[in-house]
């Protein structure tokens, strides 16, 4: 158990990758958004700006931070895994330790984003009615709900990144291409089925009815599946150089 915990520590040993760079990205995106809003608000009349603001509710600016988490996780697999093997860690210890680290990181960043979303509301959108941390899909509602949405979303991207990295470690580029193709086919099949049975309206209703919390809660299912698949792939992976 101690070794598994040490693997978790290993994932966060380098503060730059895990903390400073994501914060910098977030900070940069925030600055860019604030600058945009400032430009808009100074050049538009109040009503026009209100119109533009309502559109900005849908801002996906902070989406990039989620993508970065995917990248961290993938790199953890392709680079930290061979290193961990070199430190005589077993694959099981490595996977469990990494999962623990990612859950904790997801919670930490979830807390950060939740805090920022409250701050955003409190400052009335940073003084511009901006909605970077509290767009329609997240950052709304009571504290725990927001934290849940953010944390699970982060975890999902961590796990998907891990899965991708694992596929690469086990089967290299061919594996990646195959897995990618397989996922696309599954997605297409789903779209085909939904389209042909004319169920899009129902899908839309489900999204609206469940709200961000509901949708994200369902995301836990693919998250669990990907994490199991990742471990299965890792169990025979080797650090080919």
């Amino acid at each position, binding site marked *: 158990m101690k*070794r598994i915990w*040490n693997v978790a*520590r*290993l994932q966060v*040993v*380098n503060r*730059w*990758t895990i903390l400073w760079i994501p914060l910098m990205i977030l900070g940069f995106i925030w600055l860019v958004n604030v600058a945009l809003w400032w430009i808009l608000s100074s050049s538009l009349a109040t009503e026009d700006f209100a119109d533009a603001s309502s559109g900005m509710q849908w801002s996906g600016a902070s989406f990039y931070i989620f993508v970065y988490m995917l990248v961290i996780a993938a*790199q*953890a697999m392709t*680079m*930290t895994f*061979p*290193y961990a*093997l*070199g*430190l*005589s*860690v*077993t*694959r*099981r*210890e490595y996977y469990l330790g990494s999962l623990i680290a990612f859950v904790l990181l997801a919670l930490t960043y979830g807390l950060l984003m939740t805090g920022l979303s409250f701050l955003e509301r409190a400052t009335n959108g940073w003084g511009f009615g901006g909605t970077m941390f509290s767009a329609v899909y997240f950052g709304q509602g009571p504290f725990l709900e927001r934290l849940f949405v953010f944390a699970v979303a982060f975890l999902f991207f961590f796990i998907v990144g891990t899965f991708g990295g694992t596929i690469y470690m086990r089967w290299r580029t061919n594996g990646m291409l195959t897995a990618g193709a397989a996922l696309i086919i599954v997605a297409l099949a789903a779209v085909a089925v939904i389209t042909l049975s004319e169920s899009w309206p129902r899908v839309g209703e489900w999204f609206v009815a469940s709200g961000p919390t509901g949708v994200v809660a369902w995301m836990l299912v693919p998250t669990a599946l990907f994490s199991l698949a990742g471990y299965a792939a890792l*169990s*025979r992976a*080797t*650090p080919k*150089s």
Partner: protein
Amino acid sequence: MTATLTQTDAVVSVGGLTKRFGSFTAVDDVSFSVQPNTINGLLGRNGAGKTTIMQILTGQDFPTAGDVRVFGEAPAENPRVLSNISFIKESQRYPDDFQPRHVFESAPWFFENWDGDLAARLVEDFRLPVKRRIKKLSRGQLSAVGVIVGLAARAPLTFFDEPYLGLDAVARQLFYDRLLEDYAEHPRTVILSTHLIDEVANLLEHVIVLDKGRIIIDEDAERLRGSATTVVGTRSAVDAFAEGREVIARESVGGLASVTVTGLDDASRRQAAQTGLELSTVSLQQLIVRKTNAPDTEFENPS
């Protein structure tokens, strides 16, 4: 040939180990054992199968067939066994953006016997810049990181896989000296793979030589030393002398010939001298070169 496991008190016990990558057989029915608290050389040309065997012994790769025991158990995914092993590969990868200090910070978490003072001293000896990103280190500095981990970890079973590529001769000698020093104070089992045989010859107690995935020599180092002699002279005299003896290598130029033979006793030596033949010693490296039919240069290039 039956696959048998030899000596159950051995640290490493391999029987009939085979590893195939597709149609390529990297390791072919290999059996050997390693005694505790000895320095062993796993020698052979590039591509002979040394790294593959080490990867299987450390659970990083899996056998296609055969039995592998380390500390009495199968090593793969076995924390009991693996926590007593350190394996520093020539091509060890480190996480992106890691600096050596991150390595020396995290390695102790996994090696109980880690000696921080030794690590610090070695960092100075090798003049390693600990705050520079590993990506930016020279080949020699990268090797130094691996060597320091391997030495400071003091793992009961320590593997070194060509750990000093890029290290200059001074740094290599430093590695050998520190290894011997620490080994004398804290005995452990060391398995060292290299193609620079002459440099490590004096350190080794036991020698295993691989060629194309098979073991061709598995012998006590001291018994190997002096087991072969090169006899030089006129072709007729040499051929007459070599009659009935085990000949490892044979060369000739013009009217001169030379053979490398094994098992010359004092009487034979005197006989050779009397027939006007010249005898010269054969180093461990030369012996292995002759037996693997490799060009001499294969074992000299340190990169």
